């Protein structure tokens, strides 16, 4: 299996084998972060640019750490202080970064499809760090990586994704990735947070969290994206917590070793209780650690493909 894509835009566009290649590559990179000198020369002399149009700490820093552990130079562009404020178009910004001879643009954008558009317009690699409600491929990859690490496999697992599916790029990427690898995905949310036709992805749907929790091996709890859809209908927060919030009481009926994930940042007391977030089943901080290995793998693979002219 050889990686041939210059970009990573979403898991919908990848084959099962390509996803497995990223996971395998991540596994070999994970060890780097445990060394005394946490660095390999794989991307020495390469420049990665973090271009973030939406506020993000976790993902941006994770990419920065990943790139630095591969010895790449990293530049962070905060769009609030750049020419973007002066009305420069996304493609112009991208072409300027390309003209600086950067090798990889890591982009977070509030518009769905922005990474696809940029990747089409540029010769250099584009890694999607989240675009609108569309995809957040590295988040899903690190979720899947963590799950595989915990449970030893993906095929045949039952995985619930709970919460704001409608506005979630994390959900979409997870659905594509998990179903391609042979897991059963169950989406659990109030109807107003389930987007039209989502079952056509191959995922099942339920509105009953207690029934779902009883049968799944893992639950990925989404953040309520209040900030992402002004004026849309959201369930009342306390009511949502009562009906869908993950609590110790609810988990008491689940499998004992159920894996509880959250892409962060958590709204404690809305999506899950603090006790669950900090509890024995929670792998939330391991997800953060694994994010570095997965992003190292992605940066390495797209860079290799670019160099090989594939």
């Amino acid at each position: 299996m050889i990686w041939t894509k210059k970009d990573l835009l979403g898991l919908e566009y990848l084959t099962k084998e390509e996803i497995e290649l990223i996971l395998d590559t991540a596994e070999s990179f994970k060890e780097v972060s445990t060394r005394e000198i946490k660095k390999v020369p794989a991307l020495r002399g390469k420049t990665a640019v973090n271009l973030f149009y939406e506020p993000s700490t976790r993902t941006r820093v994770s990419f920065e750490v990943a790139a630095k552990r591969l010895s790449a130079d990293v530049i962070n562009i905060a769009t609030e202080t750049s020419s973007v404020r002066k009305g420069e178009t996304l493609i112009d910004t991208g072409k300027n970064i390309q003209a600086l001879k950067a090798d990889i643009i890591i982009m977070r954008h509030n518009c769905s499809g922005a990474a696809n558009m940029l990747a089409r317009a540029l010769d250099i690699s584009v890694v999607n760090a989240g675009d609108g409600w569309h995809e957040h491929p590295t988040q899903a990859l690190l979720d899947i990586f963590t799950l595989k690490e915990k449970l030893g496999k993906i095929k045949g697992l039952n995985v619930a994704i709970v919460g704001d599916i409608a506005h979630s790029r994390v959900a979409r990427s997870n659905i594509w990735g998990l179903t391609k690898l042979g897991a059963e995905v169950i989406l659990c949310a109030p109807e107003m947070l389930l987007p039209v036709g989502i079952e056509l992805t191959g995922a099942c749907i339920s509105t009953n969290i207690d029934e779902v929790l009883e049968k799944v091996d893992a639950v990925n709890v989404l953040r309520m994206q209040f900030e992402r859809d002004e004026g849309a209908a959201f369930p009342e927060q306390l009511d949502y917590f009562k009906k869908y919030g993950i609590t110790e009481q609810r988990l008491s009926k689940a499998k004992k070793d159920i894996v509880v994930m959250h892409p962060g940042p958590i709204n404690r007391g809305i999506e899950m209780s603090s006790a669950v977030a900090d509890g024995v089943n929670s792998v939330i901080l391991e997800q953060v650690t694994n994010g570095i290995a997965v992003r190292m793998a992605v940066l390495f693979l797209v860079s290799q493909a670019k160099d090989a002219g594939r």
Partner: protein
Amino acid sequence: MSILIKGGRVIDPGNKTDAVLDILIEGSKIAKVAKDIQAPSATEIDARNKIIAPGIIDIHVHLRQPGREDKETVASGTAAAAKGGVTTVLAMPNTQPAMDSVEHIKFLQGIIANDALVNVLVCGTITRGRLGQELSDIVALKKAGAIAISDDGNSIASDNLMLEAFKQAKQAGLLTICHCEDKKLSGQGVINLGFNSTRLGLRGISNESEYKRVNRDIELAEQSGAAVHIAHVSCRESVEIIAKAKKRGVKVTCETAPHYFALTEEDIIDYDTNMKVNPPLRTKEDVAAIKAGLKNGVIDVIASDHAPHTENEKDIEFERAEFGKIGLESGLAISIMELIDTNVLAWPELVRKISLNPAEILGINKGIFSAGGDADVIIVDAAKEFVLEKKKIVSKSKNSPFIGKKVKGLVEYTIYNGKIVYKS
């Protein structure tokens, strides 16, 4: 000057003609349509194996002048029309300023008199500034030469105001063209609401936002007794509603555009903003209903909804890009491929929908070959295959979703008012 078009297949549904005939043009008029015409002094065009039809009448065109000459002008838009075999366009009134007063219409007519390569008819607005608040002086617009009224791009939210508009339009003898969209339902949507909008993470536009307004506008037209023309029908429910209204005798006509039978939402695979149109590309089921509506006569007209936008307005994030695509130059070829070649329509039925029917709906004496009538004629090599290339687009804007597509049916000559305005 005389032109003799020899030996083509003349398709003239207004005279129920479909036969190999010659056409003699003298000056700006048709002199004769007959077998073996002899006219030694005329310029002869060999049209053997070609289709000869009345020039296309495109009832839905945005020429953008005045105000957005960077997108299109009367000169560039009519040159694109000529290339596409279109000899009459109805210019939509959402210019800057909008065609909401006698003064603005006179100003545009001045430009048309100087710059237009083909016939340009002017559509006035229903409301001042297309704001849906206060009616335009509809009688004055008619006197100034407006042939129809529309707030295209917007739909009037107030039922009372829309009813009053129909009443005044009826008195003035003007056709009302309705853009049917309930913005409370379509909201911030950018593509059809469905699996594809979910997959791409884009806000959706429901069929409901269109057909509920189609239903309302038909009911209000019926109540007032006015004629109504529904623009750019895209979904199956709209076709059903219009079919029922026609059956009960409402004076309703409608159009669809080539993209609504040639493309579906599934073609927006990689956020191609040239596929972003309003109403949006719908599903396979909707396309089937549009084709059925064309076949059974519920849909009267095919119009381009030619909507030019600059690359600056299209080569950006999908959600931020303008709605609309150009279509004057590709409409006929797409219609041949999608309707004739798939046996949805026979040639005379297609010609009826792009020429005779729009002429009758607008009440103009065109779309038919009659001795002494206007010599608006197209000669088409229906079998000629070619690729739609960006660099060959005549329109100022290049926002076509069909760039790179192999199509069939090349316009060889466009003759308007007895003059050859385009030759391939």
